[in-house]
């Protein structure tokens, strides 16, 4: 039996304009990189429990564009896009990232994949243009959480009918 549980994501705020996300995976890094950069695989995980990915476009080369669209549980569409700035297969990806609902707050996101004993440590460093933009990203989790809470409330309300 292979151990699948690799713990939870750890989010810290190194500076006023940064977000650092860290997580370990029980898989070699070329597979983590593959899951991160292959459209059909991205579609399977990127939305988490927020909804379903309806579009994943990846032009994996420096200057190439990416775009993901998710249909969120509330029925609305959420789009993100950006450009690849550095592509070092299985090691490092630097991209820009724009949440299409807030196009002025473009982030520069550095993904680092490092492998040890068949496990992969992934770090994602998001650099935002301002503290307000950084806070808006963190708040988006809050809004998503609120949305999920409302959905659950709705389910409960419906079940009580």
């Amino acid at each position, binding site marked *: 039996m*292979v151990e*699948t*549980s*690799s713990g*939870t*994501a*750890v*989010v*810290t*705020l190194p500076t006023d304009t940064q*977000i650092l*996300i860290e*997580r370990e*995976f*029980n*898989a070699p890094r*070329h*597979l*983590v990189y*593959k*899951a991160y950069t292959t459209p059909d*695989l991205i579609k*399977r*995980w*990127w*939305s*988490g*429990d*927020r909804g379903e990915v309806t579009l994943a476009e990846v032009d994996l080369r420096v200057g190439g564009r990416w775009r993901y669209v998710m249909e969120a549980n509330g029925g609305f569409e959420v789009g993100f896009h950006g450009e690849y700035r550095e592509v070092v297969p299985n090691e490092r990806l630097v991209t820009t990232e724009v949440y299409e609902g807030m196009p002025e707050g473009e982030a520069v996101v550095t993904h680092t994949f490092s492998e040890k004993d068949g496990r992969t440590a992934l770090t994602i460093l998001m650099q935002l243009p301002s503290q307000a933009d950084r806070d808006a*990203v*963190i*708040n*988006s*989790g*809050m809004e*998503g*959480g609120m949305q999920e809470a409302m959905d659950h409330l709705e389910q409960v309300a419906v079940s009580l009918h």
Partner: protein
Amino acid sequence: MNDLVRLIGLAQPLVSKHLRVLREVGLVGVRDEGRQRMYSVNGQSLKPIHDWVKTYERSWSKRFDRLDVVLEELKEMKEDDRGRDE
């Protein structure tokens, strides 16, 4: 205070300045003991920040839980296709 200066490795005026800001927002408490000032961390006032980040962190955890499932499949595929894949 002397302990903090030694541990942090910054100049004492700078440490004092940081502590004053932290005290003003209620993150640390202070009391005088003779000639020493004793500072303490007030964990409760950090809780709103912790909660704020936690919700965002949770959305990443959910995302990565699904990624774990994809990775398990990729590992199995690789074992099945040994020699052909990669």
